């Protein structure tokens, strides 16, 4: 039997590039250090080209362990683009904070390769493999600012909690295997529909899986690692993590539950409903109390996870599942764009030794750096979900699918949570424009400025015509 590697070609490119750079970086003299990020970005671009070439190319491979469909293409495009954005975010930052080691990019590539594998996983073993592949490099990256203590502390916390959640996930896989004698998603589904499965065990196993991936996505009450880790990790890593890791968690959630678990939707839906409401409310309310911008954005990310989970609540409803999935990954893309923009602003404002990270430090910045201030305003408006930004459309489609699923109360909770969120998002802008403050000098770097500018323009322009992007999301169907 010949092995067809085409379904995991992008994964192989990125992972191969990571391995090659790991070795090559050792031999480059210091003056050629810039080659590593350049080649990393080049490999990501190559992977992106291959990935987009696989659009409308449906096939399973590697003994049905992996599957590619438009969903995986769309998700992988998000992962690869966030990888490129993360390189732009890191390039200047790790130089000035004195952690410019080539391994940074290598670890990032490994993590991205894990994400790419995650979206194509058709078997729980691959899910687990991908999860570890994306997580372990992140643990290391979190502690990359060694010997900074809070960075090390964050890395250790992240590792311990991550290991715990991986254990929960693995336990869930074992229970499912015990209940159905399958680990492949289709196998589990067929066993359940044939009636040969031990149903209570399937439900319990699914709950364990849910907890395992919800941890990655930062869903309350499995979110508590996020603020500490986000704050302690180097800011460029935080930016990458807040988009990539979260997106990977949700991609896994979509793939696993939409394919394998519609039969147990009745039981799980109320759990998800509860988790979504809790996440939106706790995330947004706790964000109000934060003084550190990284922690605030961490809670903001938790709240955003709640919105995405909200669209997922009616996942067992065949009639609207395509709408749900489309609105959810559309929201993921929207969130990714605004997030990278906001993190780029944070990186630009951050000063040596971790200063300039309090929200109070942003006082007066908007008046001295009007473009930066306006860009931040755009990102914050997008997070709130106000027109004419892209965030409005993201929330619009999310709420639409929730209402289509007839979860009116949940939609109202979401609206209330959005209302609360306006307070802390706008506080940053108010601070920037309406207060006088310390004279912080914002780092000027063309990569960062470019990232801020492109993100802001994308949020605005795509907000004016969200049709094409949403159409892409709507075409990104999961192959059931």
């Amino acid at each position, binding site marked *: 039997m010949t092995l067809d590697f085409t379904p995991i070609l992008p994964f192989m490119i990125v992972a191969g590039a990571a391995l090659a750079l790991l070795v090559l970086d050792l031999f480059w003299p210091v003056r050629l250090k810039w080659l590593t990020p350049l080649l990393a970005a080049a490999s990501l671009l190559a992977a992106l080209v291959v990935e987009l070439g696989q659009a409308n190319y449906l096939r399973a491979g590697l003994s049905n362990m992996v599957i590619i469909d438009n969903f995986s293409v769309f998700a992988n495009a998000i992962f690869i683009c966030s990888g490129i954005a993360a390189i732009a975010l890191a390039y200047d930052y790790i130089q000035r904070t004195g952690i410019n080691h080539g391994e940074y990019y290598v670890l990032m590539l490994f993590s991205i390769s894990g994400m790419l594998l995650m979206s194509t996983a058709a078997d729980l073993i691959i899910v687990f493999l991908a999860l570890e592949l994306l997580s372990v490099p992140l643990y290391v990256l979190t502690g990359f600012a060694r010997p900074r203590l809070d960075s090390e502390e964050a890395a*250790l*916390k992240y590792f*311990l*909690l991550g290991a*715990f*959640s991986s254990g*929960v996930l693995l336990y869930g896989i074992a229970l499912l295997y015990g209940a159905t004698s399958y680990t492949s998603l289709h196998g589990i589904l067929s066993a359940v529909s044939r009636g040969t499965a031990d*149903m*209570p065990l399937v*439900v*319990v196993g699914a*709950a*364990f899986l*849910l*907890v395992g991936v919800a*941890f990655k996505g930062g869903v309350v*009450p*499995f979110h*508590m*690692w996020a*603020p*500490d880790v986000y704050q302690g990790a180097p800011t460029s890593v935080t930016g990458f993590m807040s988009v990539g890791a979260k997106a990977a968690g949700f991609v896994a959630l979509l793939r696993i539950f939409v394919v394998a678990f519609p039969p147990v939707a009745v*039981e*799980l839906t*109320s*759990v998800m409903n509860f988790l979504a409401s809790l996440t939106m409310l*706790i995330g947004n*309310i*706790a*964000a*109000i*109390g*934060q003084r550190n911008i990284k922690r605030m954005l961490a809670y903001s990310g938790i709240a955003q996870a709640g919105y995405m989970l909200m669209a997922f609540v009616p996942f067992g409803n065949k009639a609207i599942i395509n709408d749900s999935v489309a609105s959810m990954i559309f929201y993921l893309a929207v969130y990714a764009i605004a997030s990278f923009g906001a993190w780029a602003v944070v990186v630009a404002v951050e000063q040596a030794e971790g200063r300039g990270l309090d929200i109070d430090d942003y006082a007066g910045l908007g008046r001295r750096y009007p473009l930066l201030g306006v860009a931040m305003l755009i990102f914050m408006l997008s997070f709130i979900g106000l027109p004419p930004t892209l965030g409005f459309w993201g929330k619009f489609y999310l709420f639409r699918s929730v209402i289509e699923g007839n979860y009116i109360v949940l939609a109202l909770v979401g609206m209330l949570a959005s209302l*609360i969120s306006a*307070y802390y998002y706008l506080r940053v802008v108010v601070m920037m424009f309406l207060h006088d403050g310390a004279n912080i000098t914002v780092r000027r770097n063309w990569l960062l400025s470019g990232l801020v500018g492109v993100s802001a323009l994308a949020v605005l322009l795509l907000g004016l015509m969200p049709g094409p992007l949403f159409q892409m999301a709507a075409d990104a169907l999961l192959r059931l």
Partner: protein
Amino acid sequence: MLSETLANGNWNLAFLVLFFPLAGLLFNLIAGKWLGEKVIGAVASLATGLSFVMALLMGTWLMQGGGEAVTVPLFDWFRAGSLHLGWTLRIDTLSVMMMLVVTGVGTLIHIYAIGYMHDDVRHQGDPGRFQRFFVFLNLFIFAMLILVSADSYLMMFVGWEGVGLCSYLLIGFWYEKGAEGTGNAKAAKKAFIVNRIGDFGLLLALFLLFGAFGTLNFDPIFKNAALASPAIILAATLLMLLGVAGKSAQLPLFVWLPDAMAGPTPVSALIHAATMVTAGVYLIARSAPLYELAPSAQLVATWLGAATALFAATIAIAQNDIKKVLAYSTISQLGFMVAAVGMGAMVAGLFHLVTHAFFKALLFLAAGSVIQGMERGLHEAAHHGGEYDEDVDPQDMRSMGGLRSRMGLTFWVYLIGALALAGIAPLAGFFSKDEILLDALHEQPGVFAVLLTAAFLTAFYMGRQVLLVFFGQPRSEAAAHATESPAVMTVPLVLLAAGSVLAGALNLPVEGLHWLTGWLEHSIAGAESLPFDWLVAVGSTLVALSGLAAAYFFYGKRQPLGRALADPLSSAGCWVYSAFQHKWWVDDIYRKWLVGPLRAMSEFLAATFDQQVIDGVPKLLGESVKDFAIWLSGLQNGLVRSYIMAVLGGLIFILAFLLFIMR
């Protein structure tokens, strides 16, 4: 070529009637800054004049076409689902008549205003506002033409609100002047707010009509009106009367019009006498098919008009401000018109509308001439350093007297206007008022009696005014030194005086000469005029003459001297006269029982309720959310074991829940 396009009834050109004032106002708005007063005035007058020509032209086209109504679609306003709102002109004999009045009288007033405003802006000390005045004036003409040319209640409402806005802007034209520096602004505000009350009724009427007919276009509504529920028609027509009472200053909403005299005199003439205030009369006439189906509403309108006519006339006899007398007279005459159209005597009411436009515009403009003559006299007296009283109010009739010799032309045109208003044959007012009285006698004898009393009072207060202003000895230095106004003001006066003399010919009470009736019967079904009745004609003339004679008895023989002396009537009439003088205390009653409580409530809501309850609730909510947020942050204690406990706790909770529901 040109004559051909114009002669064949080229209705595509109908939009021009609206276009000219719009173009005029835009031109003056944009270019006025660099132009002289003469150019601005000429452009504005020309714009109105061209609209008048266009209206005349359309009148001839209508006659060629047998008088049938024409609708000219201009453009789509908007479409939403099944709702389609078009912007369509309705050209029929009624709308053309209104256009002719608006643009005809309007043109003369524009020309007059060139001279009047030239002095006024200097007297008030801001020559830069000359341009603004004519922009507003053209905007008014534009809005008024929209009102009368509308093919639907919706479009008419646009014009209705547009003229209301212009009225507000022009009453408050010298917004920083007036009593305590806010008098004019307050007057403007009062006019606007009182009109809002009326508009509220009109809007409700329109909602009812839209609900019942699914459209606001005239034709489908009138065609299907008989099929609709009578209750809805009655409610709509009654609510519409509220709008009429607001716009046409009828009881109980008339209080804004006397205050509106704060605007420059051409504004009083154009908007608050000749045109805008007649919009209510037009509304009833236009809605005649609806009113015919609601006799109770007709009855209410009739008595409303008659009561207003008498009520306002009693107030007019005790006023000393030259413009206030005319203002109450306008309210009274509008009452005549509303009573007439209420009775279904549409032609009589509209006839009076036309003649009134002439002689009331004439009276206001002549009064403006008198006021400016007084101001010049005041200036003159000051110049000569003679003894004079600085407090002389150039509008107070008690300070006038003897102006006949100093302002000859103004005197003669004023006399013509006053006699026309009093209803002395063969001036215009005689014919139109006579027709209303005749109809009233046939329809409602009670109303006839009320209106006849009002007619007596009309003659009385106009006689009093003419005697006080023009006869006797000057009672102030200002009056003694008053001078005649320039030709740009007197020529329009003469033309309007000619109109006041001749307008009666529009509808002579002779078989075959009922020209206006014949004209309007194309627009208003069943328009007819009753045959001439000598008894009524002679009777009403005698009543008018006795009014004048009574005025001469009180004010001609025994001239009151100066402001200090009491009016001769005050001793004769005791508390009744006091009621007249204080406008029946209506303003005071409103202030005490309506405005006061409303204001107190607003202040309570603004200061107490809003600040403490409305602001307090979100503040409390916000604070508690914030406290909760800080408490939540406290849970984040940084210990890995608590975080794992949270994960584990969540997991156990979920499992327990699942096992519970699967039980």
